[in-house]
């Protein structure tokens, strides 16, 4: 369904209510059907020769090509492993929010949220407002750094106001905010029954001698988002690394063009900077692509770029201020213990991966061959972000030297039968 994570369409009558912006976007698309070929329930499962785009709606595939391509793949949550994180009852805050938005269902009866960043606040406030019991919210960053935010974010009063509203709701509903603390482990036999939390220093190194434990049956984690890079990588776009933008993301010019003349990158997938930025970026890239095709004059593009560019810089500044507080610090890597699972698909424990690294597996291909890290269904999308940071730490190298995963077709599941069928070619 068009609309993405923000304007996701509700699927159940219990959902918190319609989203007018999302409805408007979907209406506009329908109204312009003659100009826009909208394909729902369709995914790009592969890109061949860096230009043949294979899409599938579950059955046979179609191969598309285009003169200008805009990629808006969005982001996924960064989930650093810690002891107990694979227990049922532990989930991402984004996952819990999606569930809440679509069905109105809360993940548990005693909910703890933990991590860093504004999503925790938003989700906690939404839950509390609907009457669910949120026991505590743990923010790894200090209270002081949050207090400074309005100063840094004066350019985006709207956003600051929104944040204040969340804080207000949490205060009213009695949700405990704990700053400078991290959930260091989750406990339970079959499923989650409790969590331990401890104070952390400026680089988020926990002081485990001051651990406290509380009961909980749901733990929602959020340590920020990371761009989904698979499409960019498979199109051959140059990538760069910046912790503040969520890690690996494509290089772009002022018009949001990647290292390829015909490929644009917009939204959180191009470097995390939030929903308002994504909308502006979409407009700018749309105009630039139209310009490249001769459908928008130089003057027109210039005007649009100037206007949107200014607005974009403002929201990016706000995004940067938020990211500055919440981007994942090195101490997070201290949470893993030898028997913490670090690759969920292959059920690999940290000691196995650590040995692989110590025996020279300091690049993706070598470590993967040595340990099977990332060989499961997620194809390293979830384990490599933390594994590569561990490599960087152990080998004292920069993340850009360690490198991103290598992306291969298919980037979404496709059956052998669907591949074997003759594809239609269009576009």
């Amino acid at each position: 369904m068009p609309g993405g994570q923000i304007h996701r369409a509700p699927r159940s009558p219990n959902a918190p209510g319609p989203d007018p912006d999302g409805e408007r976007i979907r209406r506009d698309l329908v109204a312009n059907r003659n100009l826009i070929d909208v394909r729902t329930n369709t995914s790009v499962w592969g890109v061949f020769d860096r230009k043949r785009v294979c899409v599938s709606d579950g059955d046979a595939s179609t191969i598309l090509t285009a003169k200008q391509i805009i990629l808006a793949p969005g982001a996924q949550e960064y989930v650093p492993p810690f002891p107990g994180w694979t227990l049922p009852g532990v989930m991402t805050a984004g996952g819990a929010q999606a569930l809440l938005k679509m069905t109105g269902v809360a993940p548990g009866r005693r909910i703890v949220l933990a991590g860093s960043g504004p999503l925790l606040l938003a989700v906690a406030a939404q839950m509390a407002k609907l009457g669910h019991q949120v026991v505590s919210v743990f923010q790894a960053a200090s209270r002081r750094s949050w207090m400074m935010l309005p100063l840094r974010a004066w350019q985006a009063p709207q956003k600051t106001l929104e944040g204040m509203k969340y804080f207000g709701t949490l205060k009213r509903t009695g949700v405990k905010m704990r700053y400078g603390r991290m959930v260091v482990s989750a406990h339970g036999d079959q499923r989650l029954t409790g969590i331990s939390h401890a104070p952390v220093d400026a680089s988020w190194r926990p002081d485990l001698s001051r651990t406290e434990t509380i009961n909980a049956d749901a733990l929602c984690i959020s340590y920020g988002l990371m761009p989904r890079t698979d499409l960019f990588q498979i199109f051959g776009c140059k990538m760069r690394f910046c912790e503040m933008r969520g890690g690996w993301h494509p290089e772009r010019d002022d018009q949001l063009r990647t290292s390829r003349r015909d490929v644009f990158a917009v939204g959180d997938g191009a470097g995390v900077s939030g929903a308002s930025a994504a909308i502006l970026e979409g407009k700018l890239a749309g105009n630039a692509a139209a310009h490249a095709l001769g459908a928008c004059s130089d003057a027109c593009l210039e005007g649009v770029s100037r206007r949107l560019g200014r607005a974009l810089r403002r929201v990016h500044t706000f995004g940067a201020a938020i990211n500055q507080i919440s981007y994942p610090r090195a101490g997070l890597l201290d949470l893993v213990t030898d028997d913490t699972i670090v690759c969920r698909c292959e059920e690999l424990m940290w000691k196995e991966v650590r040995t692989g690294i110590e025996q020279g597996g300091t690049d993706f291909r070598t470590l993967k061959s040595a340990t099977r890290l990332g060989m499961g269904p997620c194809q390293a999308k979830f384990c490599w972000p933390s594994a590569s940071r561990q490599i960087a730490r152990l080998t004292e190298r920069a993340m850009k030297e360690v490198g991103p995963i290598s992306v291969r077709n298919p980037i979404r599941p496709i059956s052998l039968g669907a591949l074997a069928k003759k594809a239609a070619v269009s576009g």
Partner: protein
Amino acid sequence: MKKTSDVLVIGAGVYGTSVAYSFAKRGCSVTLIDASKPGKATAASAGGLWAIGESVGLGCGVIFHNADEVSSTEPEPVPRLFMHLLKASNKMFAELAPELLLQTGMDIEAEVGTGLLYLLYNGRQRRHAQSILDWLGRDQALAEEWDRQRVLAHDPHITDDVLGAVHFPGDNQVNPLFLNEALKRAAINLGARFAGDTHVTDLLMADGKITGVATTQGVFCSGLVINAAGAWAAKLANMIDQDIPLVPVRGQIIGTETLQDKLKSNISTVDCYILQKAHGEVLIGSTTEMVGFDTGVNYEMLTDLARGAIRAIPALERVNIKRTWSGLRPGTPDELPVLGQSPEIANFHYATGGFRTGIVSAPLCGELVVANALGEKPRMSINPFLPRRFNGLPKLKHVKTPRSAIQPDAAPPQSV
């Protein structure tokens, strides 16, 4: 900072690690340098140990595509020397697997009794197969013809559209990634040094001898340098103006999701091969292409592989693909490995050219290279594999030709 060792091995694929381990076992100080480039063959490999199937051209179906077209009376000139090398190396896995387990705790998943089944879809394929069986002397320890009933009773996943199959009972499989890693770790345990993520940028010479290598992590010195750089071996040799006719030969593979159901055998057909690894994934390979160092995959070729797999095992139709990839085999014009001393530079040795059977041949080839370098009596003569045989031989031009460069009965192998 200068790092010095008795031996420098460049490339930590299965050949380089096998060589490093053999040196380390003999107490030499070894440094193993590797850049792990995209296209590294060992990381891409299927891990079939198809000593006989590959020797007679029925292992890697796509290459011998033309089992259909080959005249049914004349068997291809099959390289006996090649077969003896593979057979002897394949035998070594029975000891190597427990040895590596002991040394490193790693199980290389060397299967016993899986065997390889070459499926016969029509009469021509059967006639062709029969001529091969005759050539093998109807030795059931090597290969045996199975009728349709036996094939279907053995593994009901196989299409009932077969006439029968040729069964190669000794052609099993291994996990090539774990084999590679275990060899490396075993060498490290015996004192070898591993420099991962390190790119050799130049070979250093003085007085007609190699003195060491320059890398992205500094200079490494040694009195003996082994070129185990796989498909990049000729590039490495070129750094000191040596020329060997070795080229990258790309192979594409499809890997599926993990399946609970187990296939009973490795399978090959005229279209592709299919093998299920210990972790449950099914690998479907492979193409044989001369496209330089391009490590991409091609839609049409993958489609052909998928069709070939479904033709053999219809239930694969609904199985999801997890990943597709390609690797670069180090290919030589006579399809034999390149082992031992370079003709011009006495302390520069080769350990490469594994081509499409580099996994199965690695244990023996590693031993041969080391024995040659240290002046020991080898298990088998290294002469046919020495790089000097290339004097005047042109590069591999295209890969579908039968293996005619080798005389069927050249150089009788010594017993192992």
